[in-house]
């Protein structure tokens, strides 16, 4: 009996969005008289950072500081339609809708500034710090908040914009499967090292290294958070988690966190990750989205590492100690034969 080590890798692609029935998301942007720019929509913040990412996209497009952007979301009375927070679609769909809305609002803002400065709107730029000035002439400058206020009180203009992103519906041909079901593909590749105790069947993940290609990263801090959280969830899926320990039987279903085993801090190995950025034409500033794919490469990589360590052919998850021991027994039988 021994502790055996093995390495495994897995490479995955991940589609963003699902166009089966059309997949629209809308956003509105408007300037308040207090100097804020409000993005209104009805997508849902689940902790993934939707509000943060959309604020960044709006600030970038409007050319105003991030702090000036307020994201107001999650109310079907005030926010325009969103097809749901899932399918890795939110950064992509809502992001594109926010860009469209922010562009329209920005043009409106520049038009007002142009009247105030008596120049053409085409000659105006934003400095990202909250000012609008004439290209190359920094002195000819106005604070965006002042322009917004003047728009409302002097020029009778609503500095606002509307945006929608609607990938066309694509029905799947029932015979051939022909369809255009997604907007773009993101990629990941993971290498893990495991140690398997052949006496107890317990598996430990020793290290996990990944590279992700997710188009443009809107927010590297949040992307890293998703990748680390997904690596952990991948370990849970690969080694522990099930609501049917004797699948397909329904007996012994867990009803609490004692019986539904998920890994803790002690089960987390060192995680290394690197990001490649190949912007997608379809995505907001080239973003593809990352939230859903993050467990997909770790799971098969772990199983491959176990198979590599033991020279067995496990093809099921979770690889519980019982599964490991069964595979070892089978192998011993086959080797003996």
């Amino acid at each position, binding site marked *: 009996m021994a502790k055996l080590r093995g390495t495994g890798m897995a490479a995955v692609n991940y589609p963003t969005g699902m166009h089966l029935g059309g997949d629209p998301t809308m956003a509105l942007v408007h300037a308040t008289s207090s100097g804020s720019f409000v993005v209104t929509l009805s997508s849902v913040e689940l902790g993934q950072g939707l509000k*943060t990412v959309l604020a960044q996209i709006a600030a970038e497009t409007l050319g105003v500081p991030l702090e000036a952007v307020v994201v107001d979301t999650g*109310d079907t009375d005030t926010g325009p339609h969103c097809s749901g927070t899932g399918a890795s679609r939110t950064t992509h769909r809502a992001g594109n809708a926010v860009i469209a809305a922010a562009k329209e609002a920005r043009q409106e803002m520049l038009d007002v500034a142009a009247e105030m400065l008596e120049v053409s709107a085409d000659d105006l730029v934003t400095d990202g710090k909250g000012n609008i000035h004439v290209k190359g002439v920094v002195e000819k400058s106005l604070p965006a908040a002042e322009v917004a206020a003047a728009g409302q009180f002097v020029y009778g203009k609503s500095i606002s914009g509307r945006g929608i992103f609607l990938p066309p519906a694509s029905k799947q041909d029932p015979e*051939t499967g022909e369809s255009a*079901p997604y907007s773009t593909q993101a990629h990941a*590749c993971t290498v893990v090292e495991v140690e398997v105790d052949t006496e107890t069947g317990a598996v430990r993940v020793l290290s996990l290294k990944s590279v992700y290609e997710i188009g443009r990263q809107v*927010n590297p801090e949040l992307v890293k958070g998703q990748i680390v959280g997904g690596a952990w969830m991948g370990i849970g899926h690969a080694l522990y988690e099930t609501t049917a320990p004797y699948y*397909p039987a329904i007996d012994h279903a867990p009803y609490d966190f004692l019986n539904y085993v998920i890994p803790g801090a002690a089960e987390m190995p060192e995680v290394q990750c690197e990001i490649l950025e*190949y912007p997608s034409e379809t995505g907001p500033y080239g973003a593809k989205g990352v939230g859903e794919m993050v467990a997909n490469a770790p799971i098969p990589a772990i*199983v491959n590492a176990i198979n590599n360590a033991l020279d067995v052919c496990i093809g099921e998850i979770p690889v519980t100690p019982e599964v490991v021991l069964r595979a070892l027994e089978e192998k011993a039988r086959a080797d003996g034969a």
Partner: protein
Amino acid sequence: MASEAPKAEALNVVGQPVKLRDLKKHVGGQTSYCDDLRFPRMLHLKMHRSVQPHAKLLAVDTAAAARSEGVVRVLTHADLPGGELWSGLATVGGAGDEPVLASDKVRWKGEAIAAVVARTPEQAEAAAAKVKVRYEPLPAVFDVEEALAAGAPNLIAHWPGNHYIFGDDHAAAQIRLGDVEKALAEADRVVENVYQTSPIEQAPLETIGCVAVPDGDGRYTVHTGSQSLSSTLKSVAAYLGLPANRLRFVSGSVGGGFGGKADLAVEVTATLAAIKTGRPVKYRYTREEEMFASSTRAAWRVYIKDGVMNDGRIVARKVTTYHDSGAYLRMSNYGAMKHSTHWPGPYTVANVWVDVYCVFTNRTPSGAMRGFGIMPASFAIEVQMDRVAKAIGMDPWRLRLLNAYRNGDMRGHHRAVKDAAMIETIQATAKLSEQNLTGDLQSLSSWRQKAG
């Protein structure tokens, strides 16, 4: 098709490592979730659930529950106007098959039968336990392949073979590209395996829940942890026979979702109870309900038969997948279609044949979870790639890089791939993990068809 990899131009705010907007509130313990909402005169809803996986309902006696301390109302199937059946994702052709509260039959252990609304959660819980149900047990089926076999007990009359119907008459979601049988016959090797994933609970730390509040003007505001406000709103309206504009759905901070809050779960019954009582009604799953009664990630069984040449080219990939939908459809057809169009994974294979069945079994209905439909495909594909490599005695990195798709290649669903960068991602991973790739593999590119 561009022959060069696109580059990201520098931007101001996009690309910056900005902190999550709610972090300060989170660490201060000031973030309020659906479960933290309190309204004057708020009532609590608890469910009496089936203890049988498959049975006829002979009688549901709610008299004792209705008399129990603190109880304001008991709801059964008879209280639902029209008895609408839930249709999952109507946009992708879902058919109504699931009652909000069971009427004549239960099809899984945990199915909702009677809702009890009381002043406190404890009173509702105690009263729900007093609902008496007489069952006539029916033979149950738990395994996907057994459910499809001739003579298996039928769950839903609408689905005679215990599977969903795609298009008008297809038992499976199909992909047909090239001639897979011919390619298998001509391949140097055929590598065949089966893969199985398990049902998994999304387990967000905040359980599923909502509070339905009568606004007093004929409208109802539903505060919910749902991931899909608009579609849930429309489903609730359809079930309750209300014009959709009488509903308003509001979401605040949500304590994690991972797909587990994409399904309709609590909103219909809570809103119905709010209508019937005229008071705010909270319906929140206990952790136990979250574990056994909420939609899980489905279990998938995937059979793969690959035709491989000795030089490492995969020339055929034939796949049959059984998606364990559990007792009702919910979003399973969507997951199955998504799964089907993912084949053959990030590789270019000229001959692809896929059948994906959504199979009904007497299990907790499954739903969405992070990587819906794709996770099981990626799992099966990537474990299979290692087996193919072993079968032909090739290094697994080489096998993947040789077969990796490139921009312009045809995918299983008859569209050329765009935005491919699998090769570069594998190459970078090799570098990160100090894996030496030979020169020919290092010079591969997703933007060029030939090495060099």
